[in-house]
């Protein structure tokens, strides 16, 4: 038995948002009697952090602390229409809608503050800590909370905003495929290190290095969650998962987690991530949703690394020990492909 080391690379881009557009999202923002702000949505948080990222976006756009913002979602009686959390559209579409709603509420907030301070609203700024003051004169200030109370109980004014974001629907040409699919793309490049056991066909992924370009990490820890978990899912797809192990035959389909295989906590792979941020002009603060694209480069990188290790091309997923052993048999044994070409001593 020999463990053959292999290294594989893949690079991808990923379209952010529903293909062809035509998928609106709406948001509402209003102040509460104690001077906080409520964001009301119909967006779905299925673990990606929708409630959290829209909260941060609203706080930033309002110019107030995150602790003064709450997100309420998803009740169709109170939250306005949203197409849903899919196609990496949540942050892009809903984030843009929240920016617009928060901007409208902020405008009213500054007007209410201007009335209290007896200044021009255009001269007011927020300090992000809960205060509104005259630009260049921090002492002439009023708190956001006092502003909201004054607006409601003294001025008879609402501090509220509406936002919608809708990318216009694009058609697809029948003859050429001409279309405007999406407006921004995330990127990734990834290198997998693994070993292949030429006696059992078992692959063990030993290391991941990655570079993910996400526009802007609106919350770096939420991005990290996606990238770590997404890479795990990529390895799982590449080496383990299938509902139909004999596809296209439907026999022996797994019906539980004992037969539907996935890597467990014992198969954690060290993952070294670099995050690049090239903000997309039409994305909220430039951020591109990283949730879907993060798994994609792992699959081909694993396949390329297996080839690098033993010279077996597995073009059909998942890459099971059986497929590797059949490939080894066909090749008459392992054929390690060696180091990258530019490496000293590499093939060139």
């Amino acid at each position: 038995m020999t463990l053959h080391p292999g290294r594989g690379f893949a690079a991808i881009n990923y379209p952010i948002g529903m293909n062809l557009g035509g998928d609106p999202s709406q948001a509402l923002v209003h102040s509460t009697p104690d001077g906080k702000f409520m964001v009301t949505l119909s967006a779905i948080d299925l673990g990606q952090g929708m409630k959290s990222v829209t909260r941060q976006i609203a706080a930033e756009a309002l110019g107030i602390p995150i602790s003064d913002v709450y997100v309420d979602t998803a009740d169709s009686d109170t939250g306005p229409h949203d197409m849903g959390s899919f196609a990496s559209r949540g942050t892009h579409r809903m984030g843009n809608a929240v920016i617009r709603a928060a901007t409208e509420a902020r405008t009213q907030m500054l007007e209410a503050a201007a009335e209290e301070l007896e200044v021009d609203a255009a001269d007011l700024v927020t300090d992000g800590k809960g205060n509104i003051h005259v630009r260049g004169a921090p002492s002439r200030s009023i708190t956001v909370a006092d502003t909201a109370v004054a607006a409601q109980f003294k001025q008879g004014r609402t501090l509220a905003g509406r936002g919608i974001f809708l990318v216009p629907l694009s058609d697809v040409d029948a003859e050429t495929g001409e279309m405007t699919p999406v407006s921004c793309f995330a990127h990734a490049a990834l290198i997998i290190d693994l070993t292949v056991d030429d006696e059992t066909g078992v692959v063990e992924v030993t290391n991941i290095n990655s570079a993910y370009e996400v526009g802007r990490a609106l919350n770096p820890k939420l991005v990290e969650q996606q990238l770590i978990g997404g890479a795990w899912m990529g390895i799982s797809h590449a080496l383990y998962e299938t509902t139909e192990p004999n596809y296209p035959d439907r026999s022996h389909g797994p019906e539980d987690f004992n037969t539907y295989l996935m890597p467990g906590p014992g198969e954690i792979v060290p993952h070294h991530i670099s995050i690049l941020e090239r903000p997309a002009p039409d994305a909220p603060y430039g951020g591109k949703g990283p949730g879907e694209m993060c798994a994609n480069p792992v699959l081909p990188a694993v396949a390329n690394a297996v080839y690098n290790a033993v010279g077996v091309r597995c073009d059909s997923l998942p890459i099971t020990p059986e497929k590797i052993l059949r490939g080894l048999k066909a090749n008459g044994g392992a054929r390690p492909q060696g180091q990258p070409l530019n490496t000293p001593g590499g093939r060139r």
Partner: protein
Amino acid sequence: MAKTPVTFTLNGREAATFVDPAANLLDVLRRGLGDLSPKYGCGQGTCGACTVLIDGEPHLSCVTLAETIEGRTVETTNGLQDSAGLHPLQQAFMDGFAAQCGYCTPGMLMAAKALLDRNPSPSREEVIDAIAGNVCRCTGYEPIVDAILTAARAPRRTG
């Protein structure tokens, strides 16, 4: 169908209810007693989302007959937080971003609590063993393992 009376200790308080002979503990906890913290993930004993502690040992409540807990002690995530605040595991999961969708979290917490209760200073391998029966689809497990190790290093609470 005749129901059987069952009396047991749930998170330190006496609980009494009547159960069908075939009822599983998960349903009795959730629908019978309103403790919604254990989750249904498979009903087969293969995912761990329904993990509770029975007399301190982790059990899969979806495949545990409710009748069998007569006179025993059951702990769920609902009872982890006490008057002193969050349990160190809860705090570590929170600070360590060890949950995304949160659905496997109660089961993970109980599997981890069983470990820390009997082994306050586990190795990484022992943590991995302890949660090997709990499936998480979001996190890739690493933040969960790290959070459990962090909780183990946290100052012990008295009481």
